[in-house]
């Protein structure tokens, strides 16, 4: 379910680190909880983010959610295809619906995030709580 090459946060963002550049998106669990996404608000290229800082919002028909930067870095690219096609987030959250790319300050910080198995367990626990 959750790709093993990604790292995950408790706020349900994922990170893919490639050569000092982190691609950030929201997880399948997050998109499912949000429902149909209708609008995405992303930062400007060049914005400097600290870990845990809000990078934008994802708006669905029932809620607006703040998205937090999993690591510190500078925004090098934003996914402009999400503007006209925000529903991509529901269809392909771990792939083509990435949100931003960050030149990370400290690549080591990414390894401090959850791996796929830990995140899967974290999410399963949440789902159990929700059905309890």
């Amino acid at each position, binding site marked *: 379910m959750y790709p093993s090459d990604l790292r995950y946060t408790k706020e349900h963002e994922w990170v893919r680190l490639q050569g000092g550049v982190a691609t950030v998106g929201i997880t399948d669990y997050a998109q499912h909880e949000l429902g149909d996404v209708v609008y995405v*608000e992303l930062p400007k290229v060049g914005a400097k983010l600290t870990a845990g800082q809000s990078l934008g919002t994802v*708006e669905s028909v029932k809620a*607006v959610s*703040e998205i937090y930067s999993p690591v510190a870095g500078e925004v090098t690219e934003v996914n402009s295809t999400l503007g006209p096609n925000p529903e991509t987030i529901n269809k392909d959250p771990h792939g083509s619906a990435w949100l931003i790319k960050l030149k990370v300050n400290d690549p080591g910080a990414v390894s401090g995030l959850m791996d796929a198995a830990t995140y899967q367990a974290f999410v399963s626990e949440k789902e159990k709580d929700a059905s309890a």
Partner: protein
Amino acid sequence: MRYLPKSPSERREMLDAIGARSVADLFQSVPEALRLQGPLNLPGPMSETELVQYFRARASENSTGYTSFLGAGVYNHIRSVVTDTILLRGEFLTSYTPYQAEISQGTLQAIFEFQTLMCQLTGQEVANASMYDGSTAMTEAVLMAERLTGRQRILVARSVHPEYREVLATYARNLGLQIEEVGFARSGQIDASALAGALDAQTAAVVVQSPNFFGVLEPLPKIAELARGSEALLVTTIAEGVSLGLVKPPVDADIVAMEAQSLGLPPSYGGPYAGVIATREKYVRQMPGRLAGQTTDNRGRRGFCLTLATREQHIRREKATSNICTNQALCALAAAVHLCLLGKEGLREMAAQNVAKAQFALAELERIPGVRRVFTGPVFNEFTVQFPRSVRLINADLLREKIIGPLPLGRSYPELTKCGLVCVTETTTRAEIERLAASVRTALLQPV
């Protein structure tokens, strides 16, 4: 929303159900020092007959039979009894925007119609369900500009209504906004060169009013161009909506904040009035307040519902776009009904009469020795004149003639002593204007 009184036994039943001894028990979590000690200083209850007698007595204290030349943000226009008849229908008697589309189609449609009319009037793409009044709408428009630009510096024309500027200052005080005022030129319009000099890369918005507080129309395309040069937004506030019957809509503005009083609400002490915010569609997510949208129901029929509510306070709490979560639904309905009754031609005709009568009044006053027009800029239904003596002294004489005279401008503008703001609408008759001129003439002949 109904108010349902409770009997003592019903209160007891509810208190028992939650295990409280008294109503006072419910406030135990508030520190004692902050709690009200003793009952409020209010008169006791009255019977229906006593109430009617009381209010008849109060109402008889009202002055009647006066001719008013006061405007300055509140305008007396003709209204139809049809508006009040519709307003008094029980189904509409709420100031709240309904959440539940399944039981509120009539109210939601009325709000949708209001929004549509506001877009047509202002030339903007989207308007909300209404705000509290013009001053809070203007302030919310400024906060919106701050969110859109990420900048904190606001340039406000001194020709914007002084009370609107006070409301803005109150909001801005604790929000880190830096408000700077830009003076006016001999035309009565914003000093364009001062504005050009003040604009910089930290400026979020330029705020002007048109017609402005002196009654003068601002050159909006020129101001918009200056603002755009610094990537600042233009917020245009309108206190006299009837002007839009003739004047080009403020299409150059990025955000329009309007007072809807003159569109179907009578002048009344303290309101209630209604504010309007209209803007470009691309800014809709930063627009405060409620928005009614058109949709189709599960059988494909046209219907209405609140839309984009996900950014509001009851859902997003402290991250909400603004803390306005309500509107002036009944006042907005009055404006919608009033405008529909007038129609496009009616509004144009009303506006044309305002201009014609104001020009006549200005000409009559200018014929009086020592009375002169202050500003050269074009006006709608208000204008500023300077008298050879204090406006207050003149007004005291006019009041004895049952004329409520011009607004003395010296209180808000020390440089405009002896200047008065005169308002003439379609309700003012030629005879009344001539009586004003004659009375001013007589007043000026009195020894000071």
